[in-house]
């Protein structure tokens, strides 16, 4: 099963965030709880843990991109 990964809304006021880095490459295995990507926030950089285990199948944004909250940024193949 494929799962869409969304840009999390890290605070109530957050409308968008800057993707600081991908910590996994496309094709790489990712375990639930591992850091998948980092977001630059006003106060800090947040390391976002994966909610799924699987293979990172696709990413739709690059580092430095500003992304709206809830936008789909990647797909993980959980099969």
């Amino acid at each position, binding site marked *: 099963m494929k799962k869409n990964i969304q840009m*999390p809304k*890290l*605070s*109530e*006021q957050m409308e968008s965030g800057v993707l600081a880095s991908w910590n996994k490459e496309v094709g790489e295995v990712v375990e639930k*709880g591992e*850091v998948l990507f*980092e*977001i*630059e*926030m*006003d*106060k*800090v*950089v*947040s*390391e*976002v*843990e994966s*909610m799924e285990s699987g293979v990172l199948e696709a990413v739709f944004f690059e580092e430095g991109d500003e992304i709206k909250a809830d936008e789909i940024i990647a797909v993980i193949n959980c099969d």
Partner: protein
Amino acid sequence: MKKKPEWLKVSYNKAAVEEVNRLMAKLKLNTVCKEANCPNLGECYKKKTATFMILGRTCTRNCRFCNVTSGAVEPVDPKEPQHLAEAVKELDLNHVVITSVTRDDLKDGGAGHFADTIRAVRELNPGVSIEVLIPDLQGVQRDLDRIIAANPDVINHNVETVRELYSVVRPEADYDRSMAVLEYVKKQAPHIKTKTGIMVGLGETDEQVYQVMDDSLKVGCDIFTIGQYLQPSPQHLEVKAYVIPEKFAQYKKIGEAKGFHYVASSPLVRSSYRAEEALKEGKNNDLY
């Protein structure tokens, strides 16, 4: 936006954050973690701990560093003390930190509500240590007495910054009044631990930081916290410097040598961050 140094990285687990958020919504409670957009929210919520914020989500003051909304305030929820006590039970906390917005509009500044909350938490959760992080209550001793009478384990009141930066950072507060609050609590109830803290990175000098330590010790303060100021939004005060971790370690060493029972000092320290450890660490050192 200044580039964040490596040490300002925090973890975020969506499921843990959503779980605590759900509980707070169910019990109609607020957390300062969420309202202040605290960088430690992910870590604390994952450990199922939070700092409750009573008396609404809106503050009557407008400090330049703070992310809490200011403006027209909400009516006080009389069920809040009971709901908060239930949340402490549900989260199975050993130590609870309760803070509030500043309510200069209320006759007692919210002191009675604080006292009711302390009592409700204690009644439902005997054995839980209670820490309150209070506003200055305009220095009114009668109001402070109401909180002291409820007998929390720790009374924390933050001076927030050095005296020299008050006009910029806390224009509606008064450094001496905050020190007087700490002094009064200690005099009235020496067994209650007192605690204060500051943010650094706002342009203060080392000498000014050490002066706050000296002033706090002079009024009998037991626990001191120091953390990096982080700008909540472009509309807030700018970060003047990202203080390096080694400097925080130096502040801790000097603060404890000066006489504090415990100093928590590192970039992501907030006054309620790992508050239970601050209380226990002192105890383990036979200081309490």
